């Protein structure tokens, strides 16, 4: 029940935030979902996969195409976006299972992501090419999504539900098994734990969550373009998970909230974005590899229990 404190408190945000700040908060919600999904594979399962932007993009483009070409309302595209991401995640897991060497997964997912981006660019009318697709105004079961406030409440609901589900999973025997696979896959199998099944599960669920995040992103930005889902975006995802804390759900939230607003600052100075986020990865790896969540756990005891159990 402690889980709901944060979302409930967040309900008050629209009362004090101006539209720009509200937009930022909405973006943070999207990235919370992105980080939670990514952390599942990168932190909990411990697999080096470069698929996250691909999953993000597939969800965003699926939602955008269904809304722009087929006229579907937002509430109807959420699950298909998630399923598209899940399918891609599933494909990645198949590679992970076949993996003979550790880096194969990283390389294949990198190639796959860039291949997808190429197909967005060359998708002509379907994907809108380099200009991308405009996402039409839509509604969520009647609630018009034309204001940042309306979007906030809808996003908050979706994000809370999904993050709670992931939290439940991480604290269960399945979450434990996933981390066990990371620490020692062979020993995990010796305990009658179906390692293959759980690897597939982690990737597929990650894809589902990040795919839905993509659909939220499409509505929030109002346009999907191939450039949004390339390697520049990927380092932001990596940074959020590392800075927040690999394997920690709380960390995913902290990382997303801490870093979402930053890219805006760097837009004006070419090169600063890459230098900052690259530098951030380096600094955290050297100084605080367990991320902000470990720092938080050191200060406040109740957080430590949660951190360990989610590890």
């Amino acid at each position, binding site marked *: 029940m402690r889980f709901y404190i944060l979302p409930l408190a967040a309900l008050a945000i629209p009362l004090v935030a101006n539209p720009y700040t509200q937009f930022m908060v909405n973006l943070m919600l999207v990235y919370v979902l992105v980080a939670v999904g990514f952390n599942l594979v990168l932190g909990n399962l411990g697999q080096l996969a470069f698929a996250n932007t691909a999953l993000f993009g597939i969800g965003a483009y699926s939602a955008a195409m269904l809304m722009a070409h087929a006229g579907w309302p937002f509430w109807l595209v959420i699950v298909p976006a998630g399923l598209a991401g899940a399918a891609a995640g599933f494909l990645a897991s198949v590679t992970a299972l076949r993996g003979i060497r550790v880096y194969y997964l990283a390389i294949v997912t990198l190639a796959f992501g860039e291949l997808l981006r190429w197909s967005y660019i060359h998708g002509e009318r379907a994907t809108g090419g380099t200009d991308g697709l405009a996402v039409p105004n839509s509604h969520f079961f009647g609630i018009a999504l034309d204001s940042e406030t309306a979007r906030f409440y809808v996003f908050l609901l979706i994000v809370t539900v999904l993050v709670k*589900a992931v939290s439940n999973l991480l604290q*269960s*025997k399945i979450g*434990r098994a996933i*981390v066990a696979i990371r620490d020692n896959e062979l020993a*995990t199998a*010796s*305990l009658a*734990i179906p390692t293959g099944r759980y690897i597939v599960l982690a990737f597929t669920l990650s894809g589902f969550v990040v795919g839905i995040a993509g659909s939220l992103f499409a509505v929030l930005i109002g346009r999907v373009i191939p450039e949004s889902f390339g390697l520049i975006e990927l380092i932001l995802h990596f940074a959020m998970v590392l800075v927040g804390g690999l*394997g920690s759900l709380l960390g995913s939230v902290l990382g997303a909230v801490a870093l979402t607003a930053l890219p805006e600052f760097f837009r004006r100075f070419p090169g600063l974005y890459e230098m900052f986020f690259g530098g951030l990865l380096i600094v955290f790896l050297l100084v605080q590899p367990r991320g902000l969540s470990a720092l938080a756990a050191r200060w406040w005891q109740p957080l430590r229990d949660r951190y360990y159990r989610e590890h």
Partner: protein
Amino acid sequence: MLELQHVGVRFAGLQALSDVSLTARGGAVHALIGPNGAGKTTLFNAISGYVALSAGTIALDGAPIHGLTPHQIAAKGLRRTFQNGGLFAELTALENVLAGLHARIDASFAGILFGSRAARAAEREALARARELLRAMGVAHLADQPVKTLSGGQQRTIEIVRAVAADPPLLLLDEPAVGLAPPVRAQLVDLIRRLAGERGIAVLLIEHAVDLVMAVADVVAVFNGGVKIAEGAPAVIRRDPAVLEAYLGHV
């Protein structure tokens, strides 16, 4: 009951095991000894499914298990420990034992995802059982420490607790006494005897410490060069000339 018939294992040109036949019964401790490289751990890997057989069969209570994956064999009741430590380093001792109870926790995927009462109850039950197991083994105070912070002896104890948590009928222990101080070794001997005697578990044990083997084993099988060269009661093996020549004599 575990039954190996004419088991052979070959690694690209190297015959690691040849024509090994062996029977292990519930309630008895069956020790495997022999010099390094004799094939003992390979035999464990073959039994538990990590290595494929090139010849022979392995059956558990009559049903063949060779060719199955490690997790399938484990599901049939086999548990083991690993020579190089098979614990989950980042997890606590308690969480390691809980992982050992995984198969016993009755929670469905949907139940877990939606936080059903049944799923949460199953988890609480497992938690209580895991704490009890640690307490019975005298290591309750280590429960919440990440196992990578524990000493070698403590780690081996936790690994054994994890392995027996789900009451397996067959247990493979790979050099459990390495690095243990004498008083802890005595506890280990006691533990193994109890597992076999009180719980009726069939225990297969790889050990180099001859004194420990003599104290705990019902049957000793001696390996050298991938072949079983002798098998029998400890006292008999001690006097076997072939064994003395190959192994014990060099100690």
